[in-house]
């Protein structure tokens, strides 16, 4: 299974892999928002947690359709399905690879970008922590959506429609944790719920992803 993870990471870094696509999108959105909202620092710092989280969400969405589509097109997915790897493990590794190439860079880039949105100084830590805890759930849920739409032409839009509603709990608790951190309140309840969602999706969704893949490969 590690071989699959390493292969996916290698493919992501090489030409046409789309590594950094999500990060670049995130960067652009966060840089553009202050131009749109205006230079009102109080307003910017009020909306900063929400902007950072929504931008991270959309950036994660951007590369989802590649998770299985490329493997499906060249036949690798069929071969993986007949290999000794359990499909649940394949789903898990795909999600992990997506997180490492998308979620992790976003998490690292978010605090510096928070500066552009005049994020409250107390909130920097919570932006990092909440994204670190929350973005894995985005990748796992997205992998499930990618499995549902694998084999569909132009499945990307359908994928967004399917996946975005499932992202809502993560968005609510992620942004809430940052907001409470910025206001000097206790963010731990929100962080715990965020962690709960991530843990739950990590355990349960790969099973659903594998079941959906089996049906789609028939």
């Amino acid at each position, binding site marked *: 299974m590690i071989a*699959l993870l390493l292969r996916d990471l*290698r493919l992501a870094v090489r030409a046409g892999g789309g590594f950094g696509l999500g990060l670049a999108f995130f960067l652009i959105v966060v840089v553009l928002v202050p131009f749109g909202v205006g230079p009102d620092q109080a307003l910017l710092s009020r909306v900063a947690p929400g902007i950072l989280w929504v931008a991270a969400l959309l950036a994660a969405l951007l590369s989802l359709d590649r998770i299985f589509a490329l493997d499906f097109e060249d036949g690798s997915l069929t071969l993986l399905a007949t290999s000794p790897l359990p499909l649940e493990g394949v789903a898990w590794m795909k999600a992990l690879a997506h997180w490492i190439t998308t979620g992790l860079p976003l998490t690292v880039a978010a605090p510096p970008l928070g500066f552009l949105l005049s994020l409250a100084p107390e909130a920097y830590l919570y932006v990092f922590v909440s994204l670190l805890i929350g973005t894995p759930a985005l990748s796992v849920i997205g992998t499930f959506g990618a499995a549902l739409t694998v084999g569909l032409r132009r499945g990307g839009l359908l994928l967004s429609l399917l996946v975005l509603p499932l992202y809502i709990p993560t968005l609510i608790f992620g942004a809430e944790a940052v907001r409470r951190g910025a206001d000097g309140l206790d963010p731990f309840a929100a962080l715990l719920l965020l962690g709960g969602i991530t843990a739950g999706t990590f355990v349960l969704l790969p099973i659903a992803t594998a079941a959906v893949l089996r*049906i789609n490969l028939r």
Partner: protein
Amino acid sequence: MLNVRDVTCARGGMPVLSGVSFAVPAGHALILRGPNGIGKTTLLRTLAGLQPAISGEVTYPEDQGAYASHADGIKTALTVTENLTFWAEVHGTKLPDTIFDTFDLADLRDRMAGTLSAGQKRRLGLARLGVIGRKVLFLDEPTVSLDGFSVRLFADWLQNTHLAAGGVAVIATHVDLGITARVLELEPFKAAPDAGGGPDEAFL
């Protein structure tokens, strides 16, 4: 080693073949023949476990089946060696040194798979079969886009390495591979047009 008893398989919910039965002992190959659309690919996918049979039974040693189709599963952004190493690691085997010579890939080892010709890609796809160490092979048109020389290379490997070591192969092909194998005509097993379709489990 491979036993197929009374298998009925469907494509898109419509049965295409019914009552297919055969046995392939270790070290033997079976060639499937039949016109386009008769259900060779469907049968092979059913045997490989990619789709369930509507009825009947397929038995072979667990975790020994391998499927190869028109799509080779080659990653164009990886080199030939990286592609093969990946499949070896997935299957928990080591990359045999001889594999590059067997499939005439020695000169291409470090080439990006994306720069290979169609026939070279096909050879790389077939070389995967020599890497994963599986005993029961289900091959769907393995010689598409291969030249005569490469077909012989592949047939040699199949006969002298795979089958000689007690492996089994079920091959759907229209060309003469030049290996000693039983031929199974699929035409007589064609499912009656009014045969009831199996339940489409995906929607239950």
